[in-house]
C-alpha cells in the first residue's frame, strides 16, 4: 500500500474532446506515431423516436480522457516476467524500468485500460508515469497543465475524492474490481453506469 497514492481526476462533464492532453503527453514523452500514453476515447450512440411524420433524434456523445490508472492491483505488474514494472512505495505510481523491460508485450495483454504501449524502435514498452519528474519539481503533469478547460487534476487520490467526488463506474470502462484503478471520473450525464439501454460505439 502506497504511503500517499497519487492519481488523476477527470471531469468528463467539461471535457471537450480536444485531445490537447494527448498531444501534450506525446510531446513530453517524445512518443512515436501510434503510441499514446494518454488518449481520448470518443463514445457516441443513441436512437430516435417517430411521432407522426416527425423523426426525433435522441443522441449522445462524450469523451473519456484516460491513461495509466496506477492501479492498486496492477495486473501488468503481476504478469510482467522481468519485474520491470514496479509500484513506487512513496506514491503508488506504477512505472516500467526501460533498462529491465525486454519488450515481451505481455503487459499490453494484461491492462484493461490499454495503458502500456510497445515501442518497436526501442524494443521496450512504456506508459504514463504520472510525470513524476515534473511532480517532484513541484509542477503538474503535462496533460494536467495543458488541458484548456482544466478537466484533469492530479494529486493524492483521497484528497481528489474529497474535492471532486468521482468514480470509476463509468460506461464503456471495464469493471474497476478487476485491478482497482486509482483514478476518478466525474461522469458525463450519459456515461453514468446504470441500466445501459443503447450500446454505445467507442473510437479513439
Amino acid at each position: 500500500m502506497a504511503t500517499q497514492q497519487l492519481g488523476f481526476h477527470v471531469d468528463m462533464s467539461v471535457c471537450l474532446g480536444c485531445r490537447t492532453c494527448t498531444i501534450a503527453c506525446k510531446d513530453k514523452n517524445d512518443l512515436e506515431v501510434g503510441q499514446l500514453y494518454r488518449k481520448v476515447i470518443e463514445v457516441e450512440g443513441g436512437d430516435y423516436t417517430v411521432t407522426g411524420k416527425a423523426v426525433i433524434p435522441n443522441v449522445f456523445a462524450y469523451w473519456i480522457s484516460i491513461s495509466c490508472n496506477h492501479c492498486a492491483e496492477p495486473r501488468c505488474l503481476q504478469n510482467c516476467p522481468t519485474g520491470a514494472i514496479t509500484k513506487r512505495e512513496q506514491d503508488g505510481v506504477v512505472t516500467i524500468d526501460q533498462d529491465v523491460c525486454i519488450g515481451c508485450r505481455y503487459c499490453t495483454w494484461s491492462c484493461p485500460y490499454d495503458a502500456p504501449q510497445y515501442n518497436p524502435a526501442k524494443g521496450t514498452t512504456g506508459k504514463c508515469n504520472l510525470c513524476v519528474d515534473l511532480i517532484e519539481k513541484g509542477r503538474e503533469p503535462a496533460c494536467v497543465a495543458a488541458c484548456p478547460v482544466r478537466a484533469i487534476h492530479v494529486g493524492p487520490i483521497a484528497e481528489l475524492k474529497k474535492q471532486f467526488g468521482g468514480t470509476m463506474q463509468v460506461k464503456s470502462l471495464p469493471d474497476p474490481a478487476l485491478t482497482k484503478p486509482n483514478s476518478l471520473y466525474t461522469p458525463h450525464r450519459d456515461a453514468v453506469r446504470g441500466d445501459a439501454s443503447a450500446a454505445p460505439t467507442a473510437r479513439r
Partner: protein
Amino acid sequence: MLRGELPLLLFTLLVQMALGAVLLAAVLPFRLARRGAGAESDLLVRRLLCWAVPALVLAMALSLSHLGTPGGAYRAIFNLKTSWLSREILFSGLFTLVAMLAAWAHWKGKSSRVLIWFSLLCGIVTVYSMARLYQMTIKPAWMTFFTPVSFFTAALMLGVATGALVLLGSLGRGQVSAETFGLLLGDLVATGAVVLVVQLVSVPFYVGVLSRGPRAAQAALHLLFGQYGTALGGRLGAGVLGVGVLTCGWYLLTRKESKPVSVAGLVYLSVAGIVTAEVLARVLFYAAGISISVG
C-alpha cells in the same frame, strides 16, 4: 493480432507437439515390454526424441524472436513469484534441456528413462503455465476453461500425428514389425478418437461461456462464427478427417487384406488433417483474443 503473434503461435504448437512426442516416448516402452520388443522400442523412442528436440529448439528460437530486446531474455525468469510467463519460460527452457539430455543419453546407449519422465513432467508444467498465462490476460476468449483443454488436447493430437509418422518411417525401413506397427497404430487411433471427442464436446460449452460473457466475449463469438466461420468449420472438419482416416487405415490393417505399407497414404493424409486442424485451432484462438480494454 495474428500477423504480429506468428512466432508465439508457432511456439505454442511446437512445444505442444514436443510434449506429445515425449509422452509417447515415455509410455511406449511399457506398451512394448510385454512383447519383448526392446529393440523396436528403443528405436521408436530415439525417433520420437529426434522430433521433440529440434521442435523445442526451434520453439525457443521463435520465442526469442518475439521479444523487442532478445538480449535481455534471461531476465524473463526474474518474476517467478507472480508471473505465469516467467514460469512458462523457465519450464520450457528446462523441458528443452532435459529432452536434449535424454536424447543424448539414449543416443549413447545409456538409460534415459528417468530423464524422459523428468522431461515429460517439465513439458506438462510448461503447457499448464502456457495456458495459465493466456488465462491471466484481459481477453475473455482466453480466460475460460477452453484454453488448457485446447492446449493439452493439441499436445495429445500432435503427439498422435508425430507417433504415426515415426511408426510409418520405421516400418518403411523395416525397423519395426507389421505386428508392432498395427498394435501401436491402434493405440494412436484410440487416443486420437478420445481426444477428438473431448475437443468436439468442449466447443458447445465454450460457445455457451462466451455467449454469457462480456461484450468482448460476444464479439469474439461473432468473429468465430462470422469472419472466421470457414476456418472454424475447417478446423473441426480437418480434425474429424485426420482421426477418421487414421481409423480407416488401422481398420484396413486389422482386416489383414492390406499390407502395412499400403496404408501409408492414409497415414500421411491423417497427419495432414490433424496438423491442419491444430494450426487452424491456434489461428482461431489468437483471432478470438479481443480485449475488454477501451479504445
